[in-house]
């Protein structure tokens, strides 16, 4: 067994126990052994000075695309897990829109094995809702859960058939897993490449109206009520979706939701001059939507932040706006963007942000992690919230560089990331390398 590790002198923030105090964290045998002020180092322990950092449960991202199998030129499970560790994430959930689609136990098992081989952050597979994500026949949830899937989703595509969504929610109850839906009514969004609003009108680009998302959000909420299933709504982007979620939560339905750092910080204006790095689905919306999403995250109407990390080869984005693919990478900028925009911007406190980026997403997907409770796996991040840094995509660990935040000055980044007590990212070592 590795020597015990004492993280000494940090500010410990653990939303799972409502803890925010100057304390040390002792890690032994891959688990949290103790948390408290002035812990002594046991014999043979390594002591790591983490003064000036915030020691928190490792960040958890329930929505990433790691492109393996199928598009290993854009990302692999290993590079994605390495990027996650650099971003302070100890756990990520990989969406099943791979090639071939992750819609059976063998495919799920492959991702689990690749993840174990890679090390770095833990990667949990999400299985497809339908075979081939074709929206027709239910995939084998039971076998996929047996192989390690933690949720099901047809993300990248909406579940068009309300009947399929209904049966998925009902069938998933046996395994008590969430059904994560990408809310988009395709007949309204067809051909759209950005938010339907003034900027799209000026640019002459086809818009995607807010209603395309909200219709499906409303449908999924109604189906959650009908079935008693657990529905998780991916990457909400509109104030109307927030209102629907607010009412659903008030009625006590089993509905959870996520929001991305970019929908919390950017608007449709980022698409001006046809910047394809601002092309994502759902699209960047209006300032009033950003304000509503921030409020919802603070109130808990939206449960968690998720990056929707979507790597694309550089030359795919080097195209006319209509022709470029949707999506941006996010694992290595998520915390910095969220801290700078939300905590420094006054929308959230730091403990609230850690709740939304660690404890809450772990709870929503039923994952280990999200806590520094003694006995829990030692998935820990030390966050340097004083560090100012400029986003330089050339330094990403991800294979892809498609970010709208290039050149942006951010505050806050992971200084040290540990998974099961093992250091998987050390900014000090990375800087020297």
């Amino acid at each position, binding site marked *: 067994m590795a020597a015990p590790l004492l993280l000494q002198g940090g500010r410990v923030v653990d939303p799972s126990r409502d803890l925010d105090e100057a304390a040390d964290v002792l890690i032994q045998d891959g688990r949290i052994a103790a948390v408290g002020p002035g812990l002594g180092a046991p014999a043979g322990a390594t002591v790591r000075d983490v003064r000036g950092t915030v020691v928190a449960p490792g960040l958890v991202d329930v929505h990433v695309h790691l492109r393996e199998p199928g598009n290993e030129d854009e990302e692999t499970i290993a590079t994605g897990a390495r990027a996650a560790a650099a971003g302070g994430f100890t756990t990520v959930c990989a969406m099943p829109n791979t090639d071939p689609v992750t819609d059976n136990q063998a495919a799920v098992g492959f991702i689990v094995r690749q993840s174990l081989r890679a090390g770095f952050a833990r990667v949990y597979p999400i299985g497809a809702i339908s075979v081939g994500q074709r929206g027709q026949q239910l995939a084998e949830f039971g076998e996929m859960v047996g192989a390690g899937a933690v949720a099901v989703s047809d993300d990248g595509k909406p579940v068009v058939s309300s009947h399929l969504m209904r049966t998925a929610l009902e069938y998933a109850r046996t395994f008590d897993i969430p059904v994560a839906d990408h809310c988009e009514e395709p007949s309204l969004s067809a051909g759209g490449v950005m938010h339907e609003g003034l900027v*799209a009108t000026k640019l002459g*680009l086809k818009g995607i109206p807010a209603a395309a998302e909200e219709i499906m959000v409303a449908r999924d909420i109604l189906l959650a009520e009908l079935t008693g299933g657990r529905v998780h709504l991916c990457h909400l982007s509109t104030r109307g979706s927030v209102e629907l979620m607010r009412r659903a939560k008030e009625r006590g339905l089993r509905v959870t939701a996520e929001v991305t750092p970019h929908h919390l910080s950017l608007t449709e204006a980022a698409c001006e001059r046809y910047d394809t790095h601002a092309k994502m689905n759902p699209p960047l919306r209006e300032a009033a939507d950003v304000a509503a999403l921030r409020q919802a995250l603070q109130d808990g109407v939206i449960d968690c932040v998720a990056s929707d990390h979507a790597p694309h080869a550089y*030359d795919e984005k080097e195209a006319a706006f209509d022709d470029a693919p949707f999506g941006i990478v996010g694992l290595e900028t998520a915390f910095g963007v969220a801290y700078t925009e939300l905590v420094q911007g006054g929308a959230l406190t730091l403990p609230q942000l850690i709740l939304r980026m660690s404890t809450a997403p772990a709870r929503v997907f039923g994952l280990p992690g999200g806590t520094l409770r003694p006995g829990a796996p030692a998935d820990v991040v030390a966050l340097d919230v004083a560090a100012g840094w400029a986003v330089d995509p050339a330094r990403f660990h991800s294979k892809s560089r498609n970010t709208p935040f290039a050149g942006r000055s951010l505050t806050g980044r992971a200084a040290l990331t540990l998974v099961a007590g093992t250091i998987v990212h050390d900014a000090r070592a990375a800087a020297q390398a």
Partner: protein
Amino acid sequence: MTAALGKDLIGLERLSPDQIRLILDTAEPFKEVSERLIKKVPALRGKTIVNLFFEASTRTRISFEFAEKRLSADTVNVATTGSAVQKGETLVDTAKNLEAMRIDMVVIRHASSGAAQFLGDRIRSNVVNAGDGKHEHPTQALLDLLTIRDKLGRIEGVKVCLVGDILHSRVARSNIWGLTKLGAQVAVCGPHSLMPRGIEELGVTVLRRVEEAIEWADVLNVLRLQLERMEAGFIPSLREYYRVFGVTVERLAKAPRALTVMHPGPMNRGVEIDSRVADGPHSVILDQVTNGVAVRMAVLYLLAGGKPELADAAKGPAAGGTD
């Protein structure tokens, strides 16, 4: 390399009123060139221009080509209507190849909004947008402005209504920018299923019925209605469109004042416009076409670094008598 317009002409949104007036004023002396027996001046001698048309066009392409040839530029036409070359990846390669051939200017028409900007950001040559998707068609709006100025003697205060498919129209967007910058009053009129979101915020009034437009306007600019709009379900039929929005002789008879009718072409006679209107006394449609060549000569001349005050002299010795 002139500061007068910048490197490229992408759209009228980013031009100042003075820049737009400069182009119109520069076009005036070039009009005369096309009236000469020998329609050629040496202003762009030695310049190479590529006309890169990724989308079908007859009028605009020929108009640009005449403008270039009458300025003595060397021109090459590339027309690519196949689907494979319309992709963005090819656009990057196209840009790199053009750059490598050291051409001076590119005139681009493309089905994707932003394609002209995309090219302009990537090559040192001047880029002229000849229509990009649903974004802008600046030289069309410039020739429309010139035609209004010719006909009514001014642009400021003139009431212009664009009629038809505003949603998909790059001509409408460029006209709205140009007209509002020069102080015209602008309205748009068409089915609400073909009206883009937030259009009022560009400083235009939305009129519900074409009768209201005829009652209000000094100038109607009637846009082409494409057959595909019916197939895509935006309107029920071309027949009904003509019944509700068609600019007909009967409707024009009720105009309270003299009305000028424009159309950027190509026309669908009997759909958005009555043939008797297109060929009748209200119409300045062929004047628009004539002005198109002069406006494009002015744009090319200014982008190439020509001094606006020397535009007259740059024409060289006139074949016939001039002022």
